[in-house]
Each structure stands twice: as structure tokens, then as C-alpha cells.
């Protein structure tokens, strides 16, 4: 199967069809270990564009878009399909279920929320004790996870809910003028980005797109995906927090991590990876050449699939680029359409100008 012939000087954009794709991706439920709904969309979108598509032992979707000619530079892109969520673990009768967290969710975000359960997205809610019955002392303490239940109603969802089912926050994808408000923007923004990049892949490299699983519980999908692809270098596309809010006491916020409207966030270092400086330089140079706004993510904290990828085999030079988003790992995050667009532009331009020389030691 030959890749679709791409027009010259094509520029990636974020238009109606890209937003519609992102909406489908965000509305899908894919808690770590149960990524099927997103996998289905990725396969459907990319089969016509790929040289090879493989679903591996961990559920990763590994898409190869072969370059023209032999011995092309092997460039791996990775974005994780999974999201944080819940698993139903105990049936308390009358439609009430105990649940556990999958991935990093602050339990303070749980009370009073609606959830979707299982493949059918059956509705449920997480309630809270009425304020009328809560003592002032109790209000000063967090509501412990053990006290919360997912409530599907006394009809017990017609028997369609069962232990082991996954659940996510039930959040409707919403556009707020130039912003997006949705669940799982971390990392469906990355998934949508990879889909666009594969659809518009350059011909001089082998583009190896890994749609990974289990990132939120330790980058496990990426690890085997990188082994299978055996790339020359890797670029991970994720969504990183923008902590760009005012501080409580009005002092300068020096720990913002990234800022909305700042453009793609290039990683120099996080807890899991020291980015390959040659790749950081290439991304920065590309951004300057094309006048694409970008920001350096504040070093430290966090981690991406690059943590697993860069140590695979005999080592894979890696870097991460994130679309900034506020309030990740809650019911809904907020990201700017413009930041996504600039991330797409930067990555496309960076791929097009990517040559083996980039990796020649400085």
C-alpha cells in the first residue's frame, strides 16, 4: 500500500474535521489497560494511510509510514491512548459500587461528579453526604475514597454493570471560544496530533507512530513499542499541566510549569528523562525558522513515555513536546486551540527538516 501523495507546502491546520476527530477521541473512554475505544478510532483513521499497522501484545497500535528509498531515518512518534479513570471493585447492592483509582487522580475531585461506565457509557454518579449532616470538623477533612460510591441507580443499570468495568468522568466535549474543555485531553491531543502527522507524513523518513497503552500507570506500552520499532530517535507528544494561575497570596507564580497561549512546550528535563539536547536544539531551531511560538517546559517533575523509550535497546535519543493544558487528571481540562495548532506546525516542520545530521554529536 503506498502512502497518499501529499501536496507540496501543505500546512497542517486545526479545522472542523480535526476538532471533530478530537471530540470523538475525548468522548471515547480508555482507562489504562482498556484502551479499546480509542484504538478503534486510531485504526479506522490511519489504515488507509499506513504502510503497516499492528496491534501488539499490550494493545499498542504501531503504525508504520515508510519513507521513499532504503535506509530512511527511523523516527518514532508516541502518544498515549489511555486516560486516568476508575475500576468498579465491589458491589454494595442497590446499584452502589466501590471503586478504585487508575492513574493519578486527586480524590478531592470526585464528589458530586457524573461518570460513564463500560463500553456503553452507562451513566452513574459519585455523590457526597449532604452538607446539612456534615460537621464543621468533617468539612475540614478530605472525603476519603473508601466513603465514596458510584451510584447507577436502584435499578442496577439493568444488570449491565459488572465488577471490573472501567469508568471515566462523564464530561461533554465543549468549545469555549478559543479554548477546549474536555476530559482526557491528556493525551487525546497527542493522539489526534499523531494521526494528523501520519496523514501528512514526509517521504524522507520512516515515520513510526506508536499509540501507546498504560502510560498513566508507568509508560508500559511505550516500552515495548519502542523495542518493536527500534527507531533512531523518538519524539513523544503529550499534554502537560499549565499551572499558570495566580498564587493564593499574590506573589509571583514561579512554578507555572507551562502557560496557556505559550505554544508547544518542549521538554529539557523531567523526572523520567533528560531530553536529548540535539533534539531540543532541532525543535527550537525549527520553531525560530518558522516563527512558531514555543515554550520550554519548566524542568523537573512529571514524566512521559520518553522515560520508557529512551532506555530501550541500546538507547534511543528522545524528546517530548506537550500541548499545555490546565486541570489535567480532573473531570475536564482546558487547552487552547492555538497551542494545539502551533504544536502541529512545529512537529510537522521539525519532521520535514529532520536529517541524520541532527544526531551527529556536537
Amino acid at each position, binding site marked *: 500500500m503506498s502512502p497518499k501523495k501529499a501536496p507540496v507546502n501543505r500546512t497542517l491546520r486545526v479545522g472542523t474535521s480535526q476538532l471533530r476527530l478530537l471530540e470523538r477521541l475525548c468522548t471515547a473512554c480508555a482507562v489504562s489497560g482498556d484502551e479499546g475505544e480509542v484504538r478503534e478510532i486510531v485504526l479506522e483513521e490511519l489504515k488507509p494511510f499506513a504502510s503497516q499497522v499492528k496491534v501488539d501484545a499490550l494493545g499498542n497500535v504501531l503504525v508504520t509510514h515508510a519513507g521513499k528509498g532504503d535506509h530512511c531515518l527511523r523516527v518514532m512518534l508516541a502518544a498515549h491512548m489511555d486516560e486516568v479513570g476508575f475500576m468498579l471493585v465491589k458491589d454494595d447492592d442497590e*446499584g452502589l459500587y466501590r471503586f478504585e483509582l487508575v492513574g493519578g487522580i*486527586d480524590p*478531592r475531585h470526585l464528589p458530586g461528579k457524573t461518570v460513564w461506565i463500560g463500553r456503553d457509557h452507562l451513566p452513574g454518579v459519585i455523590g457526597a453526604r*449532604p452538607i446539612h449532616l456534615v460537621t464543621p470538623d468533617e*468539612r*475540614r477533612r478530605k472525603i476519603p475514597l473508601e466513603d465514596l460510591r458510584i451510584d447507577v*441507580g*436502584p435499578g442496577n443499570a439493568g444488570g449491565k454493570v459488572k465488577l471490573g468495568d472501567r469508568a471515566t*468522568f462523564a464530561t461533554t466535549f465543549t468549545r469555549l471560544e478559543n479554548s477546549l474543555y474536555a476530559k482526557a485531553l491528556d493525551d487525546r491531543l497527542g493522539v489526534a496530533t499523531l494521526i494528523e502527522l501520519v496523514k501528512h507524513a514526509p517521504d524522507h523518513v520512516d515515520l513510526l507512530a506508536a499509540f501507546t497503552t498504560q502510560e498513566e500507570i508507568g509508560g508500559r506500552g511505550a516500552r515495548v513499542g519502542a523495542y518493536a520499532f527500534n527507531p533512531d530517535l523518538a519524539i513523544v507528544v503529550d499534554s502537560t499541566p499549565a499551572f499558570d494561575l495566580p498564587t493564593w497570596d499574590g506573589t509571583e507564580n514561579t512554578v507555572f510549569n507551562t502557560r496557556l497561549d505559550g505554544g508547544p512546550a518542549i521538554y529539557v528535563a523531567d523526572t523520567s528523562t533528560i531530553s536529548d539536547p540535539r533534539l531540543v536544539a532541532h525543535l527550537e531551531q525549527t520553531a525560530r525558522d518558522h516563527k512558531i511560538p514555543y515554550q520550554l517546559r519548566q524542568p523537573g517533575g512529571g514524566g512521559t513515555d520518553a522515560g520508557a523509550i529512551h532506555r530501550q535497546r541500546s538507547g534511543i535519543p528522545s524528546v517530548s513536546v506537550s500541548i499545555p493544558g490546565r486541570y489535567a487528571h*480532573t473531570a475536564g481540562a482546558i487547552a487552547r486551540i492555538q497551542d494545539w495548532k502551533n504544536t502541529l506546525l512545529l512537529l510537522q516542520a521539525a519532521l520535514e527538516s529532520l536529517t541524520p545530521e541532527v544526531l551527529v554529536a556536537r
Partner: protein
Amino acid sequence: MKDILPFLKELLSAPGLSGNEAPIRELVENAWRPLVDEIGVGRLGSLHALRRGNGAEPRPRVLLAAHMDAIGLIVTSIQAGLLHFTQIGGIDARILPGQRVLVHGRNPLIGVVVQPPDRLLPPGSGEKPVAMEHLLVDIGLAPERVAALVRPGDLISFDQPPIELSGDVICGHSLDNRASVASLTVCLRELQSRLHLWDVYAVATSQEEVTLGGAQTAAFEIHPDLAIAIDVTFAKGPGITDYNAFGLGKGLTLGWGPNAHPYLHDSLKELADDLEIPYQVELMPRHSGTDAYAIQVAQEGIPSMVVGIPLRYMHTPVEIVSMKDIRRVGRLLAEYVCRLPIDFMKTLSFEKLS
């Protein structure tokens, strides 16, 4: 009879915070207008509807009151395009982070309540719930756009659409107390084909969640002989299994305590028994927490009663009520009204029925 669920879902989709009930009042007014003889708005925003009885004038009056106002938030200041807020009515700040809301600025703006990251809060915040003063609302717009659209004093309502859960239950914000407004509507619909001697005043009261001002002034203006307040009560559920909670969908509640006239209590209980409508007695040792508290002391004092609908997760945007209980309350009220003898007040005594 027409199912009440679609109307209730409309009610649950409308804002109408205490003191600003216009959006919800309009919906109720449209639904009630064809069911009553007179309808108007009280001076504090309650909706007063009269369905005249068939008895000879001067007819006795029964007041059926259900509050329509909702709890919510209100903007206090704006900082870097983010909104600080406080509460209208009783809200546990612990249910707020991540709630989708509607900011009623120059036009309605969708937003979300956000809990700032611990690193931006006072030291040690990670161990505790974040106080309301530190929570913010983000509407996703640039600061200059926010400044043009929002100002302190703008209301913020919950934007959780109603959802049907399994087992004939409905979930949404403001089921406290729009579930009871729905019951009152069921009652009015039922009365269309029935004879009743008494004048029936159906009132959707305002400001219950803040001062009970709507009910207090409606009771003064209408000066009823009898009054029944309909409000939600606690349903059994996670963390609530005590004597003061009732099975969801297992029947309505009949209040017993200082706000409930014992004669009215007994007469409603007797009727529920006759009609085989399931109920439980709700013990209310002090303030009933309902409009009955204010109505009872209007004018020279009004024999009052509280009828309740069990509800889970009160004062969160995911309150749950059984549709069965809503219909039961509507039916009980209609039957009660239809059976009120014209000389009922002569028989009413403060001692229990013999």
C-alpha cells in the same frame, strides 16, 4: 395522565438561584397557567396560583408550597481572567472542584470550578480540602475578554444536565426542590378532572435556601387556613443510614414535630393508609428546614404540615430522586385536597384524632 418526567427535566435544566428565580418561574408559570384560575408573581418572586374550589363562598383555602429556588455561586472578584466566588445557599466546598457551571455574565458562559494546584496554595493545602476562597471559576477566555463579559455580582449556576439512572430515578442539580414543584404540578393536573370544595393555592416559593422569605410573604398574602410545605428530605445512601434517612423510592415522608400540626399529620397519614400510598414518618425534633417553618408563624399562625420526598446527595449537582415518590406526593396532595370537607377547620383540634 401525562408523564411528569419531561417537565421535571425542563425544570432541572433551568437556572433560578435564590432571589433570581425568573428563569425557573417562567417555566412553572407556563405549565401551571392552563391548570389554574389565577396566577401571579408575589413581591419577593414567588409564583402564586389559585385554583378555585366548588364550595360556597367564602371558601376555605389550602396552601401547597414548594420552593423553586436553587443554591449556587456568585462572582466576588476577578483576577487574571479567573473568577473568585462565594455561595448562595449552603454548599460544601468539597463538591465544587471540577463542577461545570454557567456564569450569567453579559451572556451565559460555560465554565468550570477549579482547584488551583497545591503549589499555588498555602503550605500544607494538599492534605486538606481547598477552601471556597481559594477555588476559582475558569471560563476559558482571555482576561480582557472576561473583564468585558463578567463582573462581581454575576450569578453562577450548576450546569449539570439531568440524567435518568436505572430504576426510575432522576439525577440532576436543584432536584431540591424542583422534585416537589413537579409533585405540585402532578397534583394540579390531577385536580383538572376532580371536584374540590376548597380553594387551592399552589405556590412555587422563592428564596427558601436563604431566608424562607418567599414562603413567609406568600403565606401572609394568601392567608390560608391550612398549609402543606413540600420539600425533599434525606434518602438512605452512602454514609447515611441513620433514623433520619429514608429509602429512595420507598415512599414519601410525613413530618412529625413542632412544624407539623398533629391533626394534619394524622389526617394525611390516615389518607395515605387508605390509598395504600407508602410513607414513612419523618421525625423533625426542631426546625424542619422547610418553608413550613416560616408559613406556620404567618399572620395569627397557620396549621402546617411537611410532606417530603427522599433525595440522595442533597446540595450537590448530582441529587437523585425516585420518580415514584414524586408521583406519590402529587397523588396524595390531590386526594387530600379533594377530600377536605368544607367544615374541616371546625373539626381540626390540636389534640390527636380520637
